[in-house]
C-alpha cells in the first residue's frame, strides 16, 4: 500500500480556514479577483432591486389604475436588469484568467517541488497519488476561485442584505425570515463538517483504487502468466465497493442538506404569505409590499439553496488544498549546500568513498557498512557482488540520488555534499539498469537536461553508443517520437540510447548500473562494443554481474556484507579470491568438462 494510506496519523479533515495558504497564489490577481467579487456582489444587490420596483408597480399604477408612471418604473426594471447582466458578464470575464492561472501556477510549483524531492520519496509514493494532486485536486481549487469561493461569500452577503430589505419593507416580515434562517445556518454548518470528513475519505480511497488500477495495467503480464486476474479483480472490487460506500455517505449528507435548504425557505415564504396577507386583511400592509416581499424571497431561494453545494465544494477544495500542501510541505532532503565549493577545472575525475554507510529510511539494517574505495582518474572500476549486495545503492550515492548516512563520497577531493547539485551532476553522468524513455523525440531523450545541444553532438553521442544506425533508420530520425506514446524500441536499443544519454554531455565521471543485464547474447555484444567506446578516457564505476562486463574494467571491486572485500584486476581476483571465483566463474561445470 502507498504511504498516504499507511500513514499512521493522516490529517483527517481540512478546515476552510486552511485555505488561507492559497493567498500568495491569489495575490498577483487580487485586483481582478476583488473587482470581480464586487461586480458579483453588485449584481446580486441590483437583482434584489427589481422586486422593489415590481412592488411599486403593484401598489402604484396597478392599484390606482393610472398607468402614467408605469413606463418609468418598467424602464427602471429594465435598466436594473441590463446592469445586472453586464455585471454578471464582467464578473465571469474578470475571474476567467485568474482562476486558471492560479491553478497553473500551483501545478508548476508542485511539479518543480516533486522533481526536487529525493528518489527515496518517489519510491514511497505511487505516481497516481501525486498525479491526482496535480490534476483533480487543483481543478477543485480552480473552481473555488472561479465560482464556489466567490459565491459562498457573495451569497451570504446577498442573504443578509435580502433579509435587511425585507426588514425595511416590513420589520415583521424580516423577523419571520430571520427566525427561519438562523437554525438553517447552524444545521448547514454541522452537515458541512460531516461532509468534509467523508470527502477526504473518498479522495483517499479513490487514490488507493488508482494504485490497484495501475498495477492491473502495468502488471498485466504477470497476472496473465499466473492467472491471478481474478484475485486482482476481487481486490479492486472490494476497494471500489468501499469507495461507493463513502460516495453514498456523501450523497446522504447532501440529501439532508437539500432537504433543509429547500424546506426552510419555502416555509419562510409560507410564513410571509400568512403574516403578509393577514396584514393586508388587517390593513397594516399593502398588497404591493407583500408581492415585493415574496419576490425578494424568491430571489433569495437560490443563494440559500446553493449554500449547501457551495459549502460542499469549498470543503472539497479545502481537502484538496490539504492534500496539495501535504506534499509541498515535505522538504527536499538533497539540496545545494549553503556555501558550495567548486570542482577544479578541468575535473580530473577521481572518485573516493570513505567509510560510507547507508541504510534506507526507517530500516535498521544497513545496506552499506563502511565502504572504502578509490577510483583513479580515467580508470574503469567494475563493482560486483551478489544479488542484493547493495551495488545499485552504492552507484546512487555518487550523483547524490541518495545521500550517505555516514562517511563521505568525494570527487577530486571535494565532498559531493559541498558541491552544487547541478555542478555535481554535470560532472557525473549515470545510466540505470532500467533505461527509462520518455514519450518525446529521440533528440529530447538523449539531451534530457541539456536542451539546445547541436545535432552534431547528439549524433556523436549516438555514434559512441552504437545507436546512430538504428536512429538513422527511424522514420523521422532524431525527431521520431519514442517511448510509450511513440515508437517502441527493443531492450538493446533502449540501453544504447541510455548510454548515449550518459555521454552526450562529455562528463568526466560515469556511473553505470548494470547496463548489460536483461539483454540477449546478440544485443549484449552490440551494447558491449558501445560500452567499450563509452568508457574510453573517463572515470567510470560500472556495477556488473556478468564476466563480459567485468572484463571491460581496469580493476574490479567486490562488495559483500556491506563492505568492499577485494579490489584488483579480474584475473588477479579470479586467481586469489575464492569468493570472487564463485561469483564470476562458469556457472555450469558440465561445460567445463566438455571444453
Amino acid at each position, binding site marked *: 500500500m502507498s504511504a498516504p494510506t499507511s500513514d499512521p496519523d493522516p490529517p483527517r479533515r481540512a478546515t476552510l480556514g486552511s485555505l488561507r495558504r492559497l493567498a500568495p497564489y491569489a495575490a498577483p490577481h487580487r485586483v481582478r479577483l476583488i473587482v470581480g467579487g464586487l461586480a458579483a456582489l453588485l449584481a446580486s444587490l441590483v437583482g434584489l432591486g427589481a422586486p422593489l420596483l415590481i412592488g411599486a408597480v403593484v401598489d402604484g399604477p396597478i392599484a390606482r389604475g393610472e398607468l402614467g408612471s408605469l413606463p418609468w418604473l418598467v424602464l427602471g426594471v429594465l435598466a436594473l436588469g441590463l446592469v445586472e447582466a453586464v455585471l454578471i458578464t464582467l464578473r465571469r470575464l474578470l475571474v476567467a484568467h485568474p482562476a486558471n492561472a492560479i491553478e497553473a501556477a500551483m501545478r508548476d510549483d508542485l511539479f518543480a517541488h516533486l522533481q526536487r524531492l529525493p*528518489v527515496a520519496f518517489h519510491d*514511497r509514493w505511487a505516481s497516481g497519488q501525486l*498525479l491526482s494532486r496535480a490534476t483533480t485536486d487543483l481543478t477543485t481549487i480552480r473552481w473555488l476561485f472561479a465560482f464556489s469561493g466567490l459565491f459562498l461569500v457573495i451569497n451570504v452577503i446577498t442573504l443578509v442584505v435580502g433579509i435587511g430589505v425585507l426588514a425595511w419593507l416590513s420589520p415583521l416580515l424580516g423577523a419571520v425570515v430571520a427566525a427561519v434562517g438562523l437554525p438553517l445556518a447552524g444545521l448547514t454548518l454541522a452537515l458541512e463538517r460531516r461532509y468534509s470528513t467523508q470527502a477526504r475519505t473518498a479522495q483517499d480511497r479513490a487514490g488507493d483504487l488508482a494504485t490497484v488500477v495501475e*498495477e492491473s495495467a502495468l*502488471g498485466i503480464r504477470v497476472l496473465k502468466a*499466473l492467472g491471478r486476474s481474478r484475485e486482482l*479483480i476481487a481486490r479492486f472490487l472490494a476497494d471500489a465497493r468501499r469507495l461507493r460506500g463513502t460516495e453514498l455517505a456523501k450523497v446522504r449528507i447532501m440529501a439532508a442538506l437539500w432537504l433543509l435548504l429547500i424546506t426552510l425557505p419555502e416555509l419562510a415564504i409560507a410564513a410571509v404569505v400568512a403574516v403578509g396577507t393577514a396584514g393586508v386583511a388587517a390593513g397594516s400592509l399593502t398588497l404591493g409590499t407583500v408581492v415585493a416581499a415574496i419576490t425578494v424571497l424568491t430571489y433569495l431561494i437560490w443563494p440559500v439553496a446553493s449554500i449547501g453545494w457551495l459549502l460542499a465544494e469549498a470543503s472539497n477544495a479545502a481537502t484538496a488544498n490539504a492534500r496539495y500542501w501535504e506534499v509541498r510541505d515535505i522538504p527536499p532532503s538533497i539540496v545545494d549546500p549553503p556555501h558550495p565549493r567548486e570542482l577544479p577545472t578541468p575535473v580530473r575525475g577521481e572518485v573516493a568513498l570513505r567509510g560510507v554507510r547507508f541504510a534506507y529510511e526507517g530500516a535498521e539494517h544497513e545496506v552499506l557498512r563502511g565502504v572504502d574505495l578509490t577510483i583513479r582518474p580515467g580508470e574503469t572500476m567494475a563493482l560486483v557482488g551478489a544479488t542484493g549486495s547493495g551495488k545499485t545503492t552504492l552507484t546512487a550515492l555518487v550523483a547524490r540520488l541518495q545521500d550517505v548516512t555516514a562517511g563521505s563520497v568525494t570527487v577530486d577531493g571535494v565532498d559531493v555534499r559541498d558541491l552544487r547539485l547541478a555542478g555535481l551532476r554535470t560532472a557525473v553522468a549515470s545510466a540505470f539498469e532500467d533505461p527509462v524513455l520518455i514519450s518525446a523525440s529521440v533528440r529530447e531523450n538523449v539531451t534530457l537536461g541539456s536542451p539546445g545541444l547541436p545535432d552534431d553532438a547528439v549524433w556523436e553521442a549516438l555514434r559512441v553508443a552504437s545507436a546512430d544506425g538504428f536512429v538513422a533508420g527511424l522514420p523521422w530520425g532524431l525527431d521520431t517520437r519514442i517511448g510509450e506514446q511513440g515508437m517502441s524500441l527493443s531492450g538493446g536499443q533502449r540501453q544504447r540510447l541510455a548510454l548515449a544519454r550518459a555521454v552526450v554531455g562529455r562528463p568526466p565521471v560515469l556511473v553505470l548500473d548494470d547496463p548489460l543485464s536483461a539483454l540477449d547474447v546478440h544485443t549484449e555484444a552490440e551494447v558491449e562494443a558501445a560500452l567499450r567506446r563509452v568508457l574510453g578516457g573517463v572515470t567510470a564505476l560500472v556495477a556488473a554481474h556478468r564476466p563480459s562486463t567485468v572484463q571491460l574494467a581496469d580493476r574490479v571491486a567486490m562488495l559483500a556484507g556491506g563492505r568492499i572485500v577485494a579490489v584488483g584486476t579480474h584475473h588477479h581476483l579470479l586467481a586469489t579470491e575464492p569468493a570472487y571465483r564463485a561469483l564470476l566463474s562458469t556457472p555450469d561445470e558440465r561445460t567445463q568438462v566438455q571444453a
Partner: protein
Amino acid sequence: MTTSEPRTTGTAGTARATDTGEDVADTWRGLAAEDDEADVLPTRAGLALQRRARALVADLARPHRRALVVAAVLLVVENVAMLAGPLLIATAIDVGVPAALAGRPGPLAWSIVGYAGVGLAAALLRAGFLVLSGRIGQDALLDLRGRVLTHGQRLPLDFHESYTSGRLISRLTSDMDSLNDLLEKGLEGLLGALLSIGGIAVLLVWLDPVLAAVVIGGFVPLVVLTRWFQRRSRASYRRTRTSVARLIVHFVESMNGIRAVQAFRRERRSEQIMRGLGGAYRDANAEAFVAAAWYLGTLRAVGNLTLAAVLLLGAVRVADGALALGSLTAFLLYLRRFYDPLDQLAQFFNSYQSAAAALEKIASVLDTPIGVPEPAAPVALPRPTRGALEFDHVVFAYRRAADRTVLPEFDLSIPAGQTLALVGATGAGKSTLAKLAARYYDPTGGAVRLDGVDLRDVADADLRRAMVMVTQEAFLFSGTVADNIAMGRPGASREEVVAAADLVGARAFVEALPEGFDTDVRKRGGRLSAGQRQLVSLARVVLADPAVVLLDEATSSLDIPSERAVQAALETVLADRTALIIAHRLSTVLIADRVLVLEDGRVVQDGSPDELLTVEGGEFAALHTAWRDALT
C-alpha cells in the same frame, strides 16, 4: 517492449512547431504516425461511438429499471409540487385575501398551509430522489469499473502493448472521475432543469397566453445563443482534453523516471515543458470560461428584458381587468424559475460533455474483442495433468501485422516431463511459441494441444492451474514479499511460502530484509534489486506447482551464484514437469533435455545439447563458442 516495424505509412500527425517566441516549442514531443488526438477527441467519426456509449448506458441501467422508474416518478412529482407553489400564492392573493377581507379566512389559510405542505413535500421528494439516484449511479459506476477492469484483464497482450498502460489507467481513473463528477454535480440538476423548463412553459401558456407569447418570443435569441455556446465550448473543451492528456503523460513520465530526471539535471527543462503544457491547458480553460461569461451574461439580459416586457404588458392587462394581480405575481415568479435552471444547465454542460466523452472512450475499450474467448463448453484437462504439449500445423501472425507470418506451419510435440530450451535470434519466434503455448494468443491456423485437449476448449482457470509463464519482467505488486510470493497460490501457508523461497535461493535475502517476509516491497518493488525480483517471481512458480512451466528469460538479471542456485533448483523443480525455456545464456539452456534452434519461425536444429554441440558448423555450436569466448 517489442520492436515494432517502423511505420512509414501516413504523414506526421503533428506538424513540426515553428519556434515562434514560445518558451518551449512543441518540437520536443517529436513526430509519430498516429497521434494521441484520436484518443482524446470525441470526433465526428464518433457517431458509432456515441451509439455504443448509449448502448452501454442502457446496459448499465437495466438492472436498475424499477429503481429508475421510481426515481423518475419522484423527480416528476417533485417538479409538479414545486410548480404548484406560485399558483397557491396566486390563489392566496386573488381569492384568499378578498375572502379574508370579507371575513372568511378559510381559503387564505388553506392556500398557505397548502403552500407549506407542497414545499415540504417537494423537499422530501428531492431528498428521496437524491439518495435513490445516488445509489443507482454509484452502483452503475461500480458495475462499470468492474467491467472495464475485468475486460482489460482479458484483452490480449498486443492490445496492452499498443493501447499503452497510461491510457488504460486513465480510462479507469480520470474517466471514471468525470462520470462520478456528473453524478455528483448534477445529473439531477440536469434532469430537474429540463423538467422544470418544460413544466413552466406549459404553465405560463395556461396562466396567460398573451404574456406567454412574450416569453416565447424571448426563446428565439435564446436558441441561437445556446447553439453558438455549444459549438464554442465544445471546441475549447476538446482543446482542454488534449492539453490535459499531454500534461498527464509528462507528469507521470517525469515522476516514474525521476532518477534520470535528477541525474541528468532535467528539472529545469522539464519544468519549462510543464509550463508550456500547463499554459495551453490554462488558456483552453480560460477560453471556455470566457465563452460561458458571454453566454450566461446575454442569457440573463434576455431574461431580464423579458421580465420588463412581461411587467409592462401585465400591468396594463391587470389595470384593464384582463388579468388578476395574483396571476401576474405567479407569472413573474415562474419567469424567475424559468431562467435559473438555464443558468444551471450551462454550468453542467462541461461536466456533461466530459462525462459523455469519457463514456465513449470507455465503451470503445469494452467493445474491443478479447483475443482468446472462453470456451462455451469447456473440456476439462485430465487430472492430474501430465503436460504433453503439441503444436499441430500451427500458423500464426499478429493481428496488427497480419501480413507478416511469424510461424508458418509449425509442428512440434513435447512429451510430458521434457525440458525444452528454445534458442535463436530476436524475432526468430521463440516468445511467440511460448505465448501460443500459454494461450495468450490463439493460432491463426492449426491447434495447440495440452494432453490432447485443444487450448481453445480449456477454461482459463483450468489452464492457468496447469501452466504458468514467467517473464523477464518481474513485476511486484503492492504488499509484502510474502504476499507477492503467495500470488503463485493464494491461500498458501507461511511455511509453504518460505519453502518456495528457500528452493529458489531467495530465502536468505528475504530474511535479511528489515521485516523479513513481512517487508513491504514499496512501489514496484523499488527496494529489491532486479535479480531479487526475479527470484521472487520464480518462487511464485514453485508455489503454483503447475504441470507446464514456461520461462521467458526469467533469470537474466541474476548474478552467477544465484543463477547457479536457481538452475539447481530448476533441475529439481522441472524434473517431473514439462518446461519450455527461452534463454540467451547457454548455461540455462544446458539443463534442458532437448534444444530447439529457431530461425524465422522454423526449426533449424533439434536435439539434446550434447548432440548439437558435436554438429560441426551448427548454429548451436557457434552460439556455444561465442558464449565460451565471453568468459575468458
